[in-house]
């Protein structure tokens, strides 16, 4: 038995001119962190322009998942791109603020604001 908030991690990418949107869903748990890191590193290495990580459907993130976001941020910076976060649920927002990662990631209330 598991809790209702226990969907597997999903990663979906949408490309648009000058912006890539990565929609994360489910649970970024310790056993998913390596896959998340590899995927975000790959996407950040290929993306041009702004990279928006849409957290609308992300229900959980551990510190290794936060590390995946930081790796993508570093790769983006090297490519002179910007990675921003959008629409975190309150619990995810709390984790970002607790770890002070809002100091390195711009965090937008919704995807529309993040894209613009």
């Amino acid at each position: 038995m598991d809790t209702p908030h226990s969907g597997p991690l999903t990663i979906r990418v949408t490309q648009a001119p000058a912006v890539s949107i990565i929609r994360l869903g489910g649970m970024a748990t310790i056993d998913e962190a390596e896959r998340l890191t590899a995927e975000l590193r790959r996407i950040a290495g290929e993306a041009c322009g702004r990279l928006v990580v849409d957290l609308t459907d992300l229900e959980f993130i551990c510190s290794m998942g936060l590390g995946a976001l930081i790796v993508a941020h570093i790769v983006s910076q090297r490519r002179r791109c910007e990675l921003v976060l959008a629409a975190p649920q309150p619990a995810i927002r709390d984790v970002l603020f607790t770890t002070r990662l809002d100091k390195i990631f711009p965090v937008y209330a919704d995807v529309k604001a993040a894209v613009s």
Partner: protein
Amino acid sequence: MKFSTLVTKSDLAAARKVEPLVMAELERHGYSEEAVFAVRLALEEALANAINHGNARDASKAVRVDYHIDPRRAVIRVSDEGPGFSRGSVPDPTAPENIEKPCGRGIMLMEAYMNEVRWNRDGNCVELIKKNE
């Protein structure tokens, strides 16, 4: 206090099998959604530390989880077979020189989301306590 025990190998996916058992107990005793999230987060961080740092991902070493959950509080102990560590030796992940490092936030999250976090003398067993408030 009576504890339930689960022993697992040093594998992140295998270790997570304890989570549904703990989460179900929390929900059975009426812990809030926020408390369940907090315990899951702290437990994941303790498991990751035990496997990645304590046991250095050595598959021959085990991780032991003991938990007791009642309507008043949840007590979870995560032990590894490593040499242990000193809490004071772990740098502050929010310091400017560390803020962009991909790792090093697990202990901070445990301490932020639990009411109490303490290690045994050797530093290879962490006890997490969350009150049902």
